[in-house]
């Protein structure tokens, strides 16, 4: 029986970057997993992580989330947005956070080549031994039936050097 969970591509930043794009994603897997360790140059403690698929900026991204800050929990949603995670709770650490702390993120995209709208799950955590912390779980939906061939990860600020981005493929046979 074949092993799966295969690294497709990675990018560990050697300098700040506004975005990271995995392109030419092969259709040879069943599901995709994106794992990110990132920190941005926002002057406050956190910065949002955002996604677009296939370069599409149409109003086709939606999400519902559960998020906790250490003192309060919230559920929120965003509908018909031009990028994924528009609600603003899907955050990593930024320059206002404790030094050398990075946000931790995982996004699971099943059936990324199937001709149907694409659900996804996401979780991100921004913990810095300070009051500005957050953990967020997401249910997302990209209302587009095209196979996902590229993923752009971007922020409202720049990802800092040593931020790392790994894209894995999982095959069901």
């Amino acid at each position: 029986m074949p092993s799966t969970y295969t690294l497709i591509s990675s990018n560990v930043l050697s300098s700040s970057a506004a975005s990271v794009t995995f392109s030419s994603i092969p259709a040879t897997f069943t599901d995709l997993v994106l794992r990110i360790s990132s920190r941005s140059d926002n002057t406050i403690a956190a910065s949002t992580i955002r996604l677009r698929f296939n370069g599409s900026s149409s109003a086709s991204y939606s999400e519902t989330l559960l998020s906790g800050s250490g003192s309060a929990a919230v559920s929120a949603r965003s509908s018909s947005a031009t990028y994924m995670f528009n609600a603003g709770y899907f955050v990593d650490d930024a320059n206002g956070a404790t030094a050398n702390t990075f946000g931790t993120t995982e996004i699971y995209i099943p059936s990324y080549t199937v001709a149907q709208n694409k659900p996804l799950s996401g979780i991100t955590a921004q913990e810095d031994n300070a009051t500005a912390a957050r953990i967020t779980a997401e249910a997302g939906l990209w209302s587009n039936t095209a196979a996902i061939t590229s993923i752009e990860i971007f922020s409202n600020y720049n990802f800092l050097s040593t931020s790392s981005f790994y894209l894995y493929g999982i095959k069901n046979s």
Partner: protein
Amino acid sequence: MPATYEPIATTTLGSAASSITFSSIASSWTDIKVIIVATAASNANFAFRFNSDSGSNYSRTRLAGDGSSITSSQNTNQTELQLTSSFSIGTTPVMRTLDIFSYAGSTNKTVLFEEINDLNGSGGLNKQVGLWRNTAAITSINFFAQSATNFAAGTTATLYGIKNA
């Protein structure tokens, strides 16, 4: 290092079906994981059981959000675990994941599962923990409809095995 995270079995429905079953699950792995992407012709509820056990041996605690409110609740002594305890499955593809730890061990079995059910303006997500109070190894998992509405054609379920050595 030995290979791990292996596909054990997968089903993609060619036509609507009231159930999906993984049977004869070997005890070769440490943990197992199920990924489901499902639709139904209309909003419907689904559940699952281990080893065909319909006794009152299941319990679960959930944490759900619908975009405006958060709820947590518990159900004990259930005859199955719900795939749709917070959000039904309809025409928009939604995702369900199950992580079952030490499924072949001799203690009661814990499963973490989630409902990923965003519908672009409705729906939500639900994180749950389930318990099957049975010390037998899990050898089958049956997902089934709780009404006349079936899983739609195209619904996919895959069982993976994860090995610790």
